[in-house]
């Protein structure tokens, strides 16, 4: 197990037009690697756990930058950094949930270079997978984390299918809560996918975490006006207050009328491979006041159906506690 520390030789493309990037992505397909902020790139490649033949550096494409107001909300360029998102006045004013989520990603240094596209499309952080073991996700035929002796404190409670890794994205749950639309471009076309459908679990595709196909590039994220200025709650619980991925996070938006919750979306991070909608909670609290009594009414509901591993039972009460907090904050 040599500890490699150098980038192996590979081709580097630096397109400045999105069309050129799409052409390259199409041509290179699985042999290419899209490079944004690089926070989920260099480790893989220096460790030689991933071996793309070419890097497509997207950072020269100005059209993928910026945060713009649209007729139905805002559009965030895929290369917008997490710092830009967390400090953008428009987002802070109307979609403070997203600003908050972006502000707690990793560290200031990482937020300064890390992009929204990278944050939602990063690979899972299972330490076994990242060490280059031949697990299911890496093309093998076993899961090292789903055994009685495994060190799986940070792994999934729900919907594991051969792989028990969780989504590491802090902004993902917020985008699902805000009913964001993900703009996925390919050579000669574009498709727009709801954030909730953007993330995929291992039962659907164990080698990817999103619906993105080879040749496609996430070029923008659109936030509709529906949840602008809504009441929100966001909390990320991690070991440390800087740098760590979430043990559990909760993103919630709510509309209340006459003191009662008319509509809500509650989404948990880090409990399964995709951001997890808490639909049963959403249904139960509809029409109820946002208070302790409602919180008590749904106590334990968030974690119902969880299938904990050896070391991650704590995520169940933590999920429930965050829901309680969302309803009483």
């Amino acid at each position: 197990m040599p500890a490699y520390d150098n980038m192996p030789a590979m081709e580097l493309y630096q397109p400045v037009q999105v069309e050129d990037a799409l052409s390259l992505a199409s041509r290179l397909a699985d042999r290419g690697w899209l490079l944004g902020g690089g926070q989920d790139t260099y480790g893989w490649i220096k460790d030689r756990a991933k071996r793309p033949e070419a890097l497509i550096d997207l950072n020269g494409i100005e059209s993928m930058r910026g945060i713009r107001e649209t007729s139905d909300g805002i559009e965030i360029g895929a290369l917008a950094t997490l710092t830009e998102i967390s400090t953008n006045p428009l987002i802070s004013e109307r979609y403070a949930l997203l600003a908050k989520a972006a502000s707690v990603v990793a560290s200031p240094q990482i937020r300064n270079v890390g992009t929204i596209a990278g944050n939602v499309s990063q690979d899972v952080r299972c330490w076994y997978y990242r060490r280059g073991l031949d697990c299911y996700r890496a093309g093998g035929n076993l899961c090292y984390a789903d055994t009685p002796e495994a060190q799986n404190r940070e792994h999934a409670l729900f919907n594991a299918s051969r792989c028990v890794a969780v989504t590491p994205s802090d902004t993902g749950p917020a985008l699902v809560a805000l009913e964001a639309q993900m703009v996925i471009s390919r050579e000669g076309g574009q498709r727009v996918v709801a954030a909730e459908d953007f993330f995929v679990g291992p039962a659907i595709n164990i080698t990817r975490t999103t619906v993105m196909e080879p040749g496609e590039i996430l070029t923008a994220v659109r936030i509709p006006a529906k949840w602008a200025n809504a009441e929100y709650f966001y909390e990320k619980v991690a070991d440390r207050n800087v740098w760590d991925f979430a043990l559990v996070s909760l993103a919630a938006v709510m509309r209340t009328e006459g003191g009662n919750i008319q509509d809500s979306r509650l989404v948990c991070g880090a409990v399964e491979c995709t951001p997890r909608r808490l639909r049963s909670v959403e249904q139960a609290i509809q029409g109820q006041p946002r208070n302790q009594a409602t919180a008590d009414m749904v106590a334990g509901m968030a974690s119902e159906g969880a299938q904990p591993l050896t070391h991650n039972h704590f995520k169940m009460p933590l999920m429930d506690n965050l829901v309680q907090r969302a309803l009483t904050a």
Partner: protein
Amino acid sequence: MTYKHIGKNFTPPDIEAKVTGAARYAEDFKREGMVFARLLTSPLPAGRIVNIDYSEALAMEGVVGILTTEDLPQPAPPANPSLASDIITYIGQPILAVAAVTEEIAENAIEKIRIDFERRPFIVDPLDTLVEGGPNPYPTGNTLVRNAGEAAAGTTVSGTDVGEVKWSRDAINAFRAGQVPEGAPFPEEWAFGELEAEFAQCTTIVEEPFVTIGQPHHALEPRTGMAYWENGRCYFHGSLQSHTIGIAPLAGMLGIDPANLVFINENTGGGFGGKIFPYPVMAVTGHLARKINRPVQLRITREEEFYIGSARSGMQGRMKLGLKPNGDVGAVDVIIVGDAGSGGGASNSSAAEHISLMLQPAAMRFRGVTLYTNTTPRGAQRGPGQNEMAAVLAPIFDKAIRQAGLDRMTVRRQNAPVSEDLIGPRRGALTSAFFPQAIQMGADMFNWDERQARSGQRNGNKVTGIGLGMGYHSAGASGYDGLCRIGTDGRLYLHTGVGNLGTYSYASVVRTAAEVLKVDWNNCEIVRGNTDLHLPYSTYQAGSNTMFTEVRTNFVAAQDALRKLKEIAAADLGGAADDYEIDGARVFLSSNAEQGMTYAEAAQRAVEMGGEYSGETFPDELNDVTKRSVQGLAGTGLIGVAKDTRHSGTVPSMTIGFMEIELDLGTGKYDIVDYTAVADCGTIIHPLGFRQSMNGGGVWGVGLSGYERHVYDPQNGLSANVGLYQAKIPTYLDVPLNNNTAGLNIADPQSPMGSRGVGEPSQGCAAAALSSAISDALGGHLFNRAPVTPDMIINHVAQLDHFNTGDLKTNTF
């Protein structure tokens, strides 16, 4: 006492370079023709190499050479070899090194090397090898045996062997359950006092298990080295905490006379116990450079640092602690199973010594077992043994005090050591101790009574926890050499052979000589970092000992210079040496200050007089390193050189920490509202350095009790911690912005300036204060382990304690 330099802040000369980035570390040195080496390391936790085929790699363009075990002398286990082949004992263990004209080529070549391994069973939890029938981490056993054996030629470790110790399954099961392992053998044991008789007088007795998880080292500068050979001499740019004390062992590893080794190490980016002495991979750099006759840089990556960079040992143990009705600690009976990793050392006895000093029990028994595992080699790490013991002891001690209905601060104060108290199994004396006063000072600063009243107070989901804890480390040695020189330019050259590991203690201690010789700081120059600059044989820069040890050496060297100044003046100007005194860089008659000479003139006269005055002769008792240096300096000025005498007793550095936290019952997280710490570490000779030691130790103490731990997978022996991110170092937002720290500032009588070090206990008291505060916030609940992480707290609050590891498992989440 009023000092000119001691107790005053100053700017160490390397500060500017550190801030601007101009400071050079081993990796910054280049040499014409230099090639780059990379390591091929073991993917297996245990096994042996059946066959290596590196022909394809060696044939690659740009590959210059390969070093294997065939090129190096192999020490017998458990000594940690530089390269391993027949006995591989941990993942990441170096097997061979490839040198190439670029690092990229070296890494590409490593990919071409084919190795056939034979696997052996492995273990990552010490209790799994201690149990009868359990696999052994080495082919011949699982524990350290000390004997009088000699080191193999070219190696530095001697007197150790691998033996085997086993406990019955019943004993292991009892121990895992927190009970006494009846009938189990303990290779390590010491005791003092009448244990049972003292327990009989105790009205409060608590019996608790504990486990502490080891922690990897993560000094910012990995242990990179660069070496080249010229005319039979090896020039080695390395990264050690210490400097000249490493010359002989490094020369031994390279198989050369120490006189033929030039060791250059201007700056070291941290060591914390992981770089005290030359480490095995340095032999690879030196031998590879000699084999291929090219300068070689062997850069160690962050990941490799986690494999070969040493680590803190973990402990699994059980403690019985008795309090007498008046709060005196009557007796302590402690069992510790220590994880020495692969070929390292556990810290069992030093952990027990912490109890013997800080609690001053009337009777105590320690029983221990040191076990190897197929994990990274363990060794010293900031207060090894004492600090992790501090972390688990604090809440257990709190429990006993609460049961007795007494005050936690008061009981600690009444049992705290004073100068007349003793330590450890040999009941050794202390150089001095005033710890009750430090505890009271800390309590006053923290407003103990007022804060204690807030214990358990609820504010929504948050609950207040008040904790306190004690840190201790033996912080002083003696018997090393001091060397200074007054140049013919009148300047004072302060030669030091201690390392510069970032604490600036190297600079603080040499000011002792400036103090004795009454020289302005701007007329002083510190000479260090390169043995060709003629450095004395100085202490190891570790164990918080520099402040005590090197104050002594600089004092005796300056005294020697002072004597020579006076003798030279007397010889030239008449009278007896005792008739003269010094000030303002002059030596003059006490009765007539006009009659004297400048230091520059005295130095010139020393050169003319020769002999001992200018270093042509010197005391035979000096270490060879110092002798060579004095010979190198001979004739260049007035030489002050002397060997320090021996001190007597343990030099105790002790700290007390107080902490208030607000613990969120919903998330298991907490905010540290206040942290106050006071040190009993003698005279503070550099206030800024002292403050940084207290702050730095405080941060790491939070890490020890709250975040950091080794995690190994028992399925395959892989470590989950191979990066700074995974090591869970506390971050800026995890620790308080401001700490309140102070020193008792009572001089130690065996230090000429009264100083003792403080680096290590500053971590222990913070770790103990945090674990105490967490327990306090939860109504005195004991997790019996360090660290305590949010998941454990959440489980406890949710009454899911059965999911917390309760059976002394180590190396786990």
